[in-house]
């Protein structure tokens, strides 16, 4: 155990706790956006994911994602954390116990399916939701994670750069969000414009918790308390600040007034975009990534979504997939070996090949996830029905799925 570095281990454990807090943070971010009859439904979906996928991860998910296997998926050698002990695994992190790496990655596996909730909010049956989520984690998240991050994974071997999960987490969840929004259909009464947001302060609170937790997400992905972690920490903060400001300015120009909802949406888009780049770009790159991500997401949410008329209720696709794609491609543009000698130079430093590799990684994830998500949806729908009936939808998920309500009117 003498190879274990206490500083690195402490940082990864703290980062794991930070990333854990992002899922309840996301719950409030999303929960504030829905009508008040559905907030417990959102909080509950996020919370049950914490419970269910933590177990899935230690029982077999971690093994499928990171265990030895083929270029597409890991085997079951590490099922039940067999052989995943307190000694370091130098393939992934040479200075921390293997289980520290495992629990850090567990938090990523938890928040990724939680992001998809935004697409089908206010209309999915709770029981079907649990089944859908377990299947999605097993057949989409774990293989994509393996392909991009695991030793022997073929997208990793292709040379694609994804520091903290732009492809694995955000593009992955974001395209799954679009597919589920399309197949589940619009909410009853949806008319191509936002439905009543019941608690904007919750949305702001959730966004703030996400920003805070994201330091663990990105800087923790250095897997050590070192200069690279500091770089990731700083660029994460700066890109987020730039994106929040940029969104406010866009609103000021195009709709007259900057809104709190806009600035926090921009900040989250900034966090998404900097995620794959955090360990490869410097602060000037981060400013460009942040300023521009708001432009793309603003366009996707404000113009593309109403035009096509899909009900991506809380913009899981519009923020995570669009922002994630920009982040992955921007990594290929702004990456520099000055920040990370293990990385690569990007387009701006005369390496267009990296940009093409990034493009390829994005394309593969989009196609794989879209197809498998569609299949999982159809299977679960055929067996148990995914959408609540209209009466339940009208009364709200809180009362019909959980027999509780969040707020009282009298007393």
């Amino acid at each position: 155990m003498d190879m274990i570095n206490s500083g690195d281990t402490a940082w990864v454990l703290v980062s794991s706790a930070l990333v854990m807090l992002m899922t309840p943070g996301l719950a409030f971010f999303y929960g504030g956006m829905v009508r008040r009859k559905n907030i417990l439904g959102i909080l509950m979906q996020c919370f049950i994911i914490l419970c269910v996928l933590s177990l899935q991860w230690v029982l077999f998910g971690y093994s499928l994602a990171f265990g030895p296997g083929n270029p597409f998926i890991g085997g079951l050698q590490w099922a039940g954390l067999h052989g995943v002990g307190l000694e370091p695994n130098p393939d992934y992190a040479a200075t921390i116990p293997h289980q520290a790496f495992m629990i850090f990655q567990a938090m990523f596996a938890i928040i990724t399916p939680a992001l998809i909730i935004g697409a089908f909010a206010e209309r999915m049956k709770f029981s079907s939701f649990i089944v859908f989520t377990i299947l999605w984690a097993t057949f989409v998240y774990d293989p994509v994670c393996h392909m991009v991050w695991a030793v022997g994974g073929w997208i990793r071997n292709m040379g694609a750069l994804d520091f903290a999960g732009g492809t694995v987490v955000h593009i992955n969840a974001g395209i799954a969000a679009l597919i589920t929004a399309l197949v589940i259909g619009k909410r009853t009464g949806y008319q191509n414009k936002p439905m009543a947001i019941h608690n904007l302060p919750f949305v702001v609170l959730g966004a703030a918790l996400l920003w805070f937790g994201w330091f663990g997400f990105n800087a923790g992905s250095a897997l050590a308390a070192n200069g690279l972690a500091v770089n990731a920490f700083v660029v994460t903060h700066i890109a987020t600040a730039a994106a929040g400001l940029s969104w406010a300015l866009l609103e000021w120009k195009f709709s007259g007034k900057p809104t709190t909802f806009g600035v926090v949406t921009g900040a989250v888009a900034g966090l998404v975009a900097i995620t794959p780049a955090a360990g490869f770009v410097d602060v000037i790159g981060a400013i460009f990534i942040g300023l521009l991500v708001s432009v793309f997401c603003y366009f996707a949410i404000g113009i593309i979504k109403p035009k096509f008329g899909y009900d991506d209720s809380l913009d899981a696709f519009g923020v995570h997939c669009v922002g994630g794609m920009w982040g992955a491609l921007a990594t290929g543009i702004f990456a520099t070996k000055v920040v990370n000698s293990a990385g690569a130079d990007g387009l701006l430093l005369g390496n267009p090949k990296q940009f093409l590799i990034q493009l390829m990684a994005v394309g593969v994830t989009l196609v794989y996830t879209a197809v498998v998500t569609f299949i999982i949806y159809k299977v679960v729908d055929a067996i148990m029905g995914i959408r609540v009936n209209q009466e339940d939808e009208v009364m709200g998920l809180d009362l019909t799925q959980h027999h509780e309500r969040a707020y009282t009117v009298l007393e």
Partner: protein
Amino acid sequence: MKLIIAIIQPFRLEDVKKALYEADVNLITVSEVLGHGRQKGVDEFYRGAKETGNLLRKVRLEIAVNENFVEPTIKAIIKGARTGKIGDGKIFVVDLPRCIRIRTGDEGSQAIG
């Protein structure tokens, strides 16, 4: 003059408003209320403890109209609010002896529109 009070399902409000505008009824007061009729309430559970018959959220409309608008208003509310299921609500029509517009002091059918 009549005061028309309607208790409807919250999610039918947009349709009722639309039907009222189409009938040229544009002055309306809306409030949120709790209650239940034959629909009963819903059961809720808190840490295993069941609470039965809890009140349901409803929307209450108040519309003051001249006689010639009474039937169109009623028709519009029914058109917008009716689903055919228990819980659609009720319409009450009561006589309205006076109506005063605060800004001008106008009274009666002049003030109502």
